[in-house]
Every structure is written in C-alpha cells, then in structure tokens.
C-alpha cells in the first residue's frame, strides 16, 4: 500500500460471535490514533454511510466479517474497484448492506482516493458470545497487515 488511509478505519458488525471481527480488529488498533487515524465501530450500514460522509476522508478502511463459505478465518481484501453491488438487489430495512452504503456515499458526491475493504470469513454467525479460534487468529494477522500498511505509508496532507 502506497498511502495511508488517512484517518478512518471502521469496524462493521456487532458485539457477538464472529460478527464482532470488525469491532475487535478496531480495538486492537487502538494505538493508531496517535498517528492521526480515527477509529470507529458501527453495526448499521447507514451509520457507516453517515460516518463516511461526515468524515469526508479521502481514504478509509472497513473491516467486516464475511459470511461462512467453508474457510473460516480467511482474510480477503479488496480495493473499491474490485467490489460492486449486485444489480437488482432489493433494499430493505435490514438489507441496506455495506456495498449499498458505499454506493450511496458515492452517489452523494463523496469520492475516495483509496477505499479498502478487509473481510474475515466467519466460522459461524449463530448464537454465542466469543470469537471462533480461526477468526481470533485471523484478526491478529489482519491487524498486523493494517499496522504494516500504516508504518510504510505516508499520510495525506
């Protein structure tokens, strides 16, 4: 990564189970604000959109748990141009998803120099309070990756 996210890392999800991956990752990056990075957590995609609009940061990183697909703990990272909404998908109050929220922000005229999405594949999204061992380990790996990005990167002016 050639540049720093410049101030915004958002953990998306909830407090329970592997859905907490994004929140826990943000917690483990707690020292980054010393470098001028804002850390935020939310469980609501429209709040994510509001945060992105309010912050007007040219760069943002989002960390979220991905649905189980048989490879728990797998980290997948994407730049903005690698992700797109599935056309024809219907909005509902529960169905305003991450990608729709990003598209909404862009539709409002906000542009990103860099928007990076990191996902950690969940083992399960059922009941329970703790992280699975696979996701727990993956968070540590992802946090180191993000930290290394910031160590090498130069902040935007």
């Amino acid at each position, binding site marked *: 990564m050639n540049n720093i996210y410049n101030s915004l890392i958002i953990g998306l999800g909830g407090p329970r189970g592997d859905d907490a991956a994004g929140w826990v990752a943000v917690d483990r990056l707690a020292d980054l604000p010393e470098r001028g990075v804002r850390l935020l957590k939310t469980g609501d995609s*429209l709040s994510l959109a509001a945060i992105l609009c309010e912050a007007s940061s040219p760069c943002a990183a989002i960390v979220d748990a991905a649905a189980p697909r048989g490879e728990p703990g797998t980290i997948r990272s994407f730049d903005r141009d690698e992700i797109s909404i599935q056309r024809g998908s219907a*909005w*509902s*109050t529960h169905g305003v998803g991450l990608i*729709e929220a990003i598209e909404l922000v862009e*539709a*409002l005229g906000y542009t990103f120099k860099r928007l990076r999405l990191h996902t950690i594949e969940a083992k399960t999204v059922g009941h329970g309070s703790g992280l699975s061992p696979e996701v727990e380990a993956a968070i540590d790996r992802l946090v180191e990756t993000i930290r290394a990005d910031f160590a090498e990167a130069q902040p935007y002016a």
Partner: protein
Amino acid sequence: MSNESKHDPLHDSAAGEAPDSKASVNASTERTIRVAAMARVEGEGGITIVVRDGKVEDAQLRIFEPPRFFESFLRGRSLLEVPDITARICGICPVAYQMSSCHAIEKLLGMNVPAPIKSLRRLLYCGEWIESHVLHFAFLHAPDFFGYESAIAMAQAKPEFAAIVRSALAVKKAGNSIVETLGGREVHPINVRVGGFYKLPSRADLAALAERLERVRDVARDLVRWTAKLDFPDYEYDYEYVALSHPVEYPMNEGRLVSSKGLNIDMAEYPDHFEERHVPHSNALQSLKKGSGAFFTGPLARWNMNRDRATVDARVLGGELGISWPCDNPFVSIVARAIEVFHAVDLAIRLIREYEPPERAFEPVEFRAGSGAWITEAPRGILYHRYEADDKGAVVAATIIAPTSQNQRQIEEDLIRFAPTILDIPQAEAEWKCEQVVRNYDPCISCATHFLTLNIVNK
C-alpha cells in the same frame, strides 16, 4: 391471542406460498397483479390482487417469512430477561419492545418509576422514532414518489435529491446517537431493564447529544417541508385510526387507547375490543377491531389524533404545510412520519434540557404472581404486551401483538380499494403502485411473524 386458529372466509387461497409466481393475465375475465417479493420493506412478503371482470375480487398481503415463536420461548424465563429477549424481535425497533415489556412487567409487579426515568425512556424512544422513521421515509418510501428503485438512484438523479439523502443521513445518525448514548449501543441496545436503566447517562454525554440534535433540528424541519410537496395519489378513506392518547404528551409510553370513531379504553382492555385471526396466506396473525374490522395505527393515526400535544414548533410546522389535518390519505403517512421525526428531535432536546438525574438508575424489583399488560407507540404503531408470571418471577404466559399485525388487514383493504385505479396501467407499474400502498404503512414483517399459534388437532 387465542389458541384457536380462525380462518378468514374472505381469503381461501393457498397458505403463504413461496414467492415464485409471476404476474398473469387472463385475457377474457381475470387479471392477477402479483408482487412476488416486496422491496424496501422489512422482512419477506408479497402481494396478490385478483381482478375478475374488471372488479377487484381479493387482495392478499402474503407474509411468508417463517414464524419465530418468541412468545413460546419466553415461558419459564425470568421477567428480568424479557426486555432483552423481546428486543431481539426487531433490529429496527428494539426500544419499542423494551418499552412495552418493561411497562407491562412493572404493571404486573405494581411498580412505579420516577419521573426522570420516564423522561429518559421517552428520550430513548425519540432516538428510535428518528432512526426508524428517517430510514423509511427517506430511503425506502421517498423513491416511490419519483419512480426510482432505490435511494441511491434517487441521489444520483438530481443534486436536490442528493441533498435530501445527505440530510436524512445526518438526522438518522443523530437518532442513532440517542440510542447509543442511552441504550449502550446503536443497534440492539442493552441498557434498558425493568425498573429503569442499568447505567444512567452522564451530563457530559447528554450535553454532547443535545449539541448533535441542535445541529440537525433545522435539517429535520426542512425534510418535513420537502415531504409535504410530494405528489400524493388522490385517494382517501374514512379510516378508524387507533393510537394512544395522553392528556399533555404526544403519545409514546403512556395514555389511554383511543380511536377516531369513539373507542376510549384502558390499555389493559385491549383484548376485549380487538382479536387476532389466522389467514391462510400469512404467517402473521391479523388483528381486527371487534365488530368493525380493520383499523389504522402508526404515525398518521397518532398525528391525526394527537397533533395538538406535539411540541410547539412541530405543531406550527404541521400547520404550515398546506395539508388539512386530520388527513385521510394514507400516502400522506410519509409527511406524518417526517413530522414525528422533527417532533422527536425537538422533544429530545427539551428532555435533555429539563433532565434531573434520578436518585438511582433503577427501582428495585420484588417478584409477585400476577399479570400485566401495556401498550406503547412503536414507530409503526401500537405494540401490545401482556405477561403472566409466578411468584418467583418466571413467565407463565406472554402475548405480543406488533403494529404490522394490526395494520395487515387495513393494508389489504387499501389494496382492494386502490387497485381499480391502476387496472389500465402496465403490469410493472401496477405492481410498483401496489407496493407503494403497502409502504405507506412501513410494515415490519419480521416483527409480525415473531409469533404463530401452533394448533395441533388430534383426530
């Protein structure tokens, strides 16, 4: 809720089938307008309207989202767990479930909570009204009025619409901030308990919240004015509106249950005046007012009957919109929803300003056997809870009737009355119009399907 399933003779089609059918037209006598799965509503449902010989024969709001049996698995649980369990019925209106359950349980236990706790509860409810209403009117409902498939498409179409969406995001975020500050987090709050709160907000937290609300107050007012200029279909009906009514407050947590046609009862008398029925095409029970049938609950019902108790500025705003209140056009619900957002922002600021902390975060609980029922005003309308418990505080029976269940029949009757106006337009447009009729009510299907009476007959 009765254990006896009553089938509705008006609806004799197959039970809530999967959403795989397509629109069909029988050239000679019959046309079916069928929306397989509705967009921009919460949960999984569809619409079927059957037209025969140019006349609408039947309309069904098909709810095929599976039942969730909340009332059954509350049995045996502690009364103290109920607010947190029932809050899980809905991710959009968890506060409503917390409010109705806490009040019903406090009634059961003979508890009174002090005024500051009541104020904090109203403040928390303001947050939920704001976030739920803004989500619906700006992101889910408004695109209907311009023919856009989503708020994204609407925002891309014109700078004016982008500004509206941006404003709505800011107001919604302020609502989320209330829920986060008082509830512990913005989604599925965890700080509400029987008798009060687990933890009281600090003055600094409330001051920051008030500042945020002040910043969006005028924005919320402008959103109301924008909704009032929408092009509403010419459609009115002499509805029976049902809502709580309080002598001095715009209703949220307290009051008597009243209707626009003369009902005026204590909320505990609800089962004497309302009943629920099972219809084959829906996994949610339908509520009817005994002796008269369908009724209308939600923001338009509340505003039509209680607008004189809204905040002063909300009243003034409501009076300058060029809409004659009470208004019997259900499409104007979007305006009522927007006004309630402004009212909630305004009220929240006032509640924070007037707040004096209580002596303690919650009142102590002493269990006793008994029953208690309560109604509060969820964003979508009245939410009835009733509990019976033993002397150890274990739930013996629970009944929960959500606003969407209560509006279901009214939605179907609206479709029957509205459909004749769209018989000559193309199928896709007709389906869209029908969805818009349903979205007038902001139905929350997940709420409505949290229960289903399982009736096993052994022969």
